[in-house]
């Protein structure tokens, strides 16, 4: 009995010893491989923000990996507001925004981190108004959009826009969650800072908006022009009832003829240095700007490209 117990204890002891040794072993191993892999020093750039830009940012990160394999770029979305919030906290290196930082946000960033956020225009986007592909409507004015979307607006039915739809007459409004830069941009420029009418379907991403509209014949919504699919149609938009409506094309977005065009921005804390600067320079070069075009957005004009 005692012998058995002794044997048992020894067994446990040996097992613990082995486990501890194993732990140390892997610990050492890990350190070694980490040292070998880092070479000149592995760098990670944290990048977060706009959902409108998340596909673009990912495409940049993948492409940049080929140019600079030692730099890891971690991209996440969540909305411009979340990107800015993270920048203010100092947890990321670069925030993507589909709207400008507000003065109070810049103040907060200065107070929290001691550095002034620096803005880079990395491309342009036309905010497209989408409807289902079978919807006969082609044009829409700001006034009509405000009547559809804004609090106190009168339009709730397609027949009030002179459109007859097979799927029903009620307009299904698709919008974005309130952290979205697209949401704030639309509110500021189309609704004139008035609030949204309650009861819209608030989607959590640019892609979801377009998906829902593609599946809903009576829906209308807004999202970046890069998210257009075969299931939806982009409307021509005019800022005033008399003015000619323009389509969300690259030329119209750059020339300003399209009324809801905006800049796509990246913010860093203070002037970027080292690898972050190299990355931003690359984004603003012809190579990086070509990717902007490939993702469905409008690149900066060639004379503004960095060499």
């Amino acid at each position, binding site marked *: 009995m005692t012998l058995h117990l002794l044997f048992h204890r020894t067994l446990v002891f040996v097992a613990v010893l082995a486990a501890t040794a194993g732990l140390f072993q892997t610990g050492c191993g890990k350190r070694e491989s980490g040292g070998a892999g880092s070479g000149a020093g592995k760098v990670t750039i944290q990048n977060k923000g706009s959902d409108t830009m998340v596909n673009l940012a990912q495409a940049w990160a993948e492409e940049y990996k080929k140019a600079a394999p030692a730099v890891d770029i971690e991209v996440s979305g969540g*909305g411009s507001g979340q990107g800015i919030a993270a920048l203010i906290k100092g947890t990321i290196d670069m925030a993507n925004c589909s709207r400008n930082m507000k003065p109070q946000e810049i103040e907060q960033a200065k107070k929290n981190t001691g550095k002034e956020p620096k803005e880079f225009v990395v491309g342009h986007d036309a905010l497209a108004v989408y409807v289902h592909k079978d919807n006969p409507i082609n044009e829409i004015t700001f006034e009509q959009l405000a009547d559809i979307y804004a609090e106190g607006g009168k339009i709730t039915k397609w027949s009030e826009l002179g459109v007859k739809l097979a799927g029903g007459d009620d307009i299904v409004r698709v919008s974005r969650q309130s952290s979205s830069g697209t949401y*704030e941009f639309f509110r500021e420029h189309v609704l004139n800072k008035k609030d949204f009418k309650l009861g819209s379907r608030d989607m959590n991403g640019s892609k979801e908006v377009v998906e*829902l509209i593609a599946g809903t014949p009576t829906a209308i919504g807004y999202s970046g022009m890069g998210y257009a699919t075969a299931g939806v149609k982009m409307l021509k938009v005019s800022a005033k009832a008399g003015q000619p409506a323009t389509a969300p094309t690259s030329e119209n977005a750059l020339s300003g003829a399209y009324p809801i065009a905006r800049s796509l921005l990246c913010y860093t804390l203070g002037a970027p240095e080292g690898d972050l600067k190299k990355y931003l320079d690359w984004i603003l070069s012809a190579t990086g700007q070509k990717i902007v075009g490939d993702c469905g957005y409008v690149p900066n004009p060639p004379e503004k490209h960095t060499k």
Partner: protein
Amino acid sequence: MQKRGRPSWAVFAEKALEGIIYLCGFSAIIFVLGIFFFVFKVALPVLFEPNFSLSQFLFSAEWYPTSESNVRYGVLAMIAGTFSVTLLAMLIAVPFGLGAAIFVSEFCGSKLKETLKIIIELLAAIPSVVWGFIGLTVMSKLIVQFTGAPVGVNILNGGIILALMSVPIIVSIGEDALKAVPDSYREAGLALGATHWQLVYRVLLPAAKNGLLAAVLLGVGRAVGETMAVLMATGHAVHIPDGILDSVRTLTANIAAELGEAPENSNHYRVLFLTGVLLFSITFVVNLAADLVIRGIKKK
């Protein structure tokens, strides 16, 4: 074998273990109080803000947390959303869940029983985001096709998804409750000439009442607290529903969608925590009601 006195370390270890177990028992109370305290501490300052009123919070359906002209924090539409989705889910899940529990426990053979139990447990293990995805893609298309609703993400969709999520809980706990009824009850019932169905209806259900009620209430708890699946399946529209095909937003989904962007310690942030306190109170009332009902049953 000769009897020996226990070594002192064994006595000490036993005492220590006893203490640890004692602590484990009390830890639940400490955690609940701690969570309530911290959530309430963050929420509290907003109650004294001049542009916040509690009656508006509870009885207004206007939710404009980021408005530039007129900020309003009313969660009535979301309370209505939470209750409508939960109610529908329970209308579907309770009959199905209890029926399945009765079948598994009383009517099916042992081989089928084992298979069913494994599958039901598998159903419980599906992550909620996967349920939400099913609601968003598969269910929404089916709902549009069969009901002619303009949008497939609505109360019906969320209710069905939540029902599917709570059924496994109701079945496994309900089955345990039925299994706990002593076999002598069954034997006595059958000996008196009751049919199998009469036995279930007249003997087993009354005997297992408490356990079955607990099963249902745990299902309700799951439905009220579920976040990810309803966020994806209900359409996320701030709107008091007129019908089963309307989109709604639930309290939990609203917190999940907005807490990330609300600046820390802003009023918006605190109001979201206050919504948490509200959810806490709802579950507390549900649990308390259940407890009182069970006590009432016991007294009879």
